[in-house]
């Protein structure tokens, strides 16, 4: 077993986004943290100002621009980069990885691989051989096998403020879970373990869809009844989609599922929520995307989940109507009207 003395070994965080910076801070209480940023300017700015994306950074954090340094110095890495860039980042990181590396990612999104002549817009359906979870990307692209993910209701700003919160580390390996617990746990931060890696990843990803819908309800000025309806029906839809994609129902009932869902659906701080909110206020997706540099994973997730639902013939009304709002010309009001008339009559039929 791992000895106590080595628990102060440096760890790496790959991706200096908002969540990446917060995780780096959480880790930095007891050890050196190498924080990798793709952009050399960000590295310089972190080293000079000791802050990034509005988060003050712990003095133990060293910003770097070289993946080989991160992989060379650290046995444990937390890659937290947007899903669209994840695979290309892994391709760069992979030559520096060894089977002893442990990777715990914090990205809630899907990866898709399409034939060169196709795009996400042009394909009509997607199946599981084209859609991968992030842990699967890590395993495909590198020799790392001890892989885990970090999921749960973790709004960056609340974590940064030291408010009580919890997270799940999911991995097939207890070793990874225990390591993650040891590194992240503190008085305000509770860490749970789960062995259903894919289930937890799916829960974290699919909840983004419902978060957009929740933002939309809020943008239309509706209250708590509507939200209760959305969360419960949204949950059912997540379970169905999740099962079709290879997860178990259980993971959806935990911190990464229902926990994360309730949080994001109630939080204007969440990017996905924000997208839905603005859509309901009448902005178009184009406007929204133009006005922010942060990536709302949910948009991509809706795109992919809708096409998976079509392939696996899963009933997913919320995802489908959101898809039409985002990428076709349905308005939020029309979408809501459609959903309220949708002939769903069984409450729970998945347990």
């Amino acid at each position, binding site marked *: *077993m791992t000895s106590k003395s*080595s628990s102060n*070994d440096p760890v790496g965080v790959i991706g200096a986004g908002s969540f990446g910076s917060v995780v780096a801070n959480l880790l930095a209480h007891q050890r050196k943290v190498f924080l990798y940023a793709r952009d050399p300017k960000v590295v310089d700015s972190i080293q000079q100002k000791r802050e990034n994306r509005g988060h003050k950074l712990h003095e133990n954090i060293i910003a770097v621009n070289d993946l080989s340094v991160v992989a060379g110095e650290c*046995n444990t890495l937390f890659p937290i980069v947007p899903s669209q860039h994840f695979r290309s980042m892994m391709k760069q990181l*992979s030559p520096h990885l060894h089977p*002893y590396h442990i990777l715990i990612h914090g990205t809630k999104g899907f990866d898709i691989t399409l034939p060169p002549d196709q795009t996400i817009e042009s394909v009509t359906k997607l199946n599981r051989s084209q859609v991968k979870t992030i842990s699967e990307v890590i395993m495909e692209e590198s*020799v790392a*096998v001890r892989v885990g993910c970090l999921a749960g209701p973790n709004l960056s700003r609340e974590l940064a403020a030291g408010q009580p919160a919890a997270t799940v580390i999911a991995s097939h390996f*207890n*070793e990874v879970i225990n390591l993650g617990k040891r590194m992240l746990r503190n008085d305000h931060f509770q860490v749970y373990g789960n062995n259903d890696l894919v289930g937890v990843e799916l829960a974290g990803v699919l909840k983004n869809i419902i978060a957009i819908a929740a933002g939309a309800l809020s943008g239309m000025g509706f209250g708590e009844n509507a939200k209760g309806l959305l969360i419960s029906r949204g949950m059912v839809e997540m379970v169905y989609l999740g099962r079709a994609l290879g997860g178990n129902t259980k993971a959806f009932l935990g911190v990464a599922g229902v926990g994360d869902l309730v949080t994001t659906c109630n939080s204007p701080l969440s990017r996905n929520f924000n997208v839905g909110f603005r859509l309901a206020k009448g902005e178009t997706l184009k406007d929204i995307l133009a006005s922010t540099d942060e990536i709302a994973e949910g948009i991509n997730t809706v795109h992919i989940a809708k096409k998976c639902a079509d392939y696996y013939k899963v009933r997913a009304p919320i995802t489908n109507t959101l898809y039409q709002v985002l990428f076709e010309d349905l308005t939020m009001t029309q979408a809501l009207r459609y959903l309220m008339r949708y002939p769903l009559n069984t409450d729970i039929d998945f347990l």
Partner: protein
Amino acid sequence: MEVVEKKNKNKQYKPILEGIPDWPVYQLSKNRKEFLEEVSQKSISRIKELRPTPKQLLDELEATVYREQQRMKRNRWRVDPADEQQFWATIKEELLTLAAKTPEEAEPKAEEILKRIVLRYAEEIAGNFKASSYKVTREIVKFWFVRLLNGARVKKFGAFFRNRYTLRDKIHIVGKVKQLRKLATEGTVVMVPTHFSNLDSILIGWVIHSLGLPAFIYGAGLNLFNIKIFAYFMNSLGAYKVDRRKKNLPYLETLKLYSTLAIQKGAHSLFFPGGTRSRSGMIEKQLKLGLLNSTIEAQRNLYLETPPGDKVRKIFIVPVTLNYHFVLEGPDLIDDYLSIKGQDRYLPEQDKYGSWQLIQFLYKFFTKGSNISVSIGPGLDVMGNYVDEDGRSLDPQGRVIETRDYFVSNGKITIDKQREDEYTRMLSQKIVSEYHRINRVFASHLVAFVAFEMWQKKHAKLDLFGLLRLPEEDQVLSYEEFRETCKRVRKQIYKLKDHNKVYHATHLKGKIDLVIRHGLDNVGILHLKRPLLLNKEGNIITKDFNTLYYYHNRLTGYDLEKFI
């Protein structure tokens, strides 16, 4: 009509180790006593780890006795030792006298009993490789096989003593032979073949010998030792015995340690990871993890225990598929499969084939044109990574990986059972996908698959059992339609081959009519009721739907159904 395998090079391989005394298996049997002592020592400490308190140990022993006595009542075999009943009765009595004492007082005695049980199991499991008997067997097999082949094929007086045909004409070995031979000198090879027939063990034994490899140790089902001919072969080839009736902890641990330690000591090993013969005729999808786990454990121990500076002996996993036109037990296996498919009840292994049936089969096998091919897959390390000729592990991009690193946490090799269980699962998935990849499609597989799927498609509403009871008048397929479908599916098989997802026999190429003929002539060739044949009008019919289903299953798992 016979389409000749063109690729068969008919090559003779020199032995990689000259004298039998150099063979690891010989070394093992020479030091048999010490080895068994070590196996039992380690098994006992493992069992005590798992059952740490005296109370738990006593419970375990009682459970073991109970199970053994139940087994003797229900399912006795010819190979079971004569003193078995008495042995367990004595143990039971001794345990009864302990019942009055506190667990702590009873502990020394309980340990003594455990030791006796474990030693008995170790003795039972252990193989008995004898160089002299190995040589004799080898020569007998070679001599008679060749005689049979020549006598039967060339129907002329005197043909009996000719050497025109050798076994190599019947059994084609394809794939990574050179690498396998190299790996066997670099490290320890664990060969993991698919399992369709009881004949597999003998076949593989022959393959190993004819590739010039030293004898491998087998984990052979104890039921095979019921058949005397098999028992003789197995014993002389270094087989150790696996009794699937015994599910108690002391037995399972002893068995596992036997194989782990043997591999660790460098004995090349062979086991069928599917556990038993594939009942359905499908390539195994679920493997038994216990023995695979022991390869990972052995590798970790080697990294842990090899003195610094010495080269660590690496373990290589080599998947092998055996491809037949015909499986003797096919009809019975599929019956078993179908009867358990609905209801999950216990199925005792029954072997209807005694020595005589086996000889008959062998005679038929040699007299009729039914070839077998053995595909040797590329070597893997215990993590399922491909290895190069020198045994170095490679990642998908071709970079060299240190296998040792998989066992390292924070710079040190650690023992983590849960981690290794997970590695075992990963390895088993890799082996399964390799099976599908190196599988060689025969014409007989193609025709069986196409015919069955066509019937299925015509009667889409019927479930499997309904389909198998299809009335006879519906069991006809027009030859034209059949021919076109075969062509389509064959094209798809070519495509899969281009993507390196399956192989096919050379005879699958060429005019489709000839290929279909070859397939029909060979599919289940020696069964009383042929699974597929032409009727008077030249259309396709079946005489045995179940068996057809069995041969069809060989090609499931490739998504070929879409092309029917």
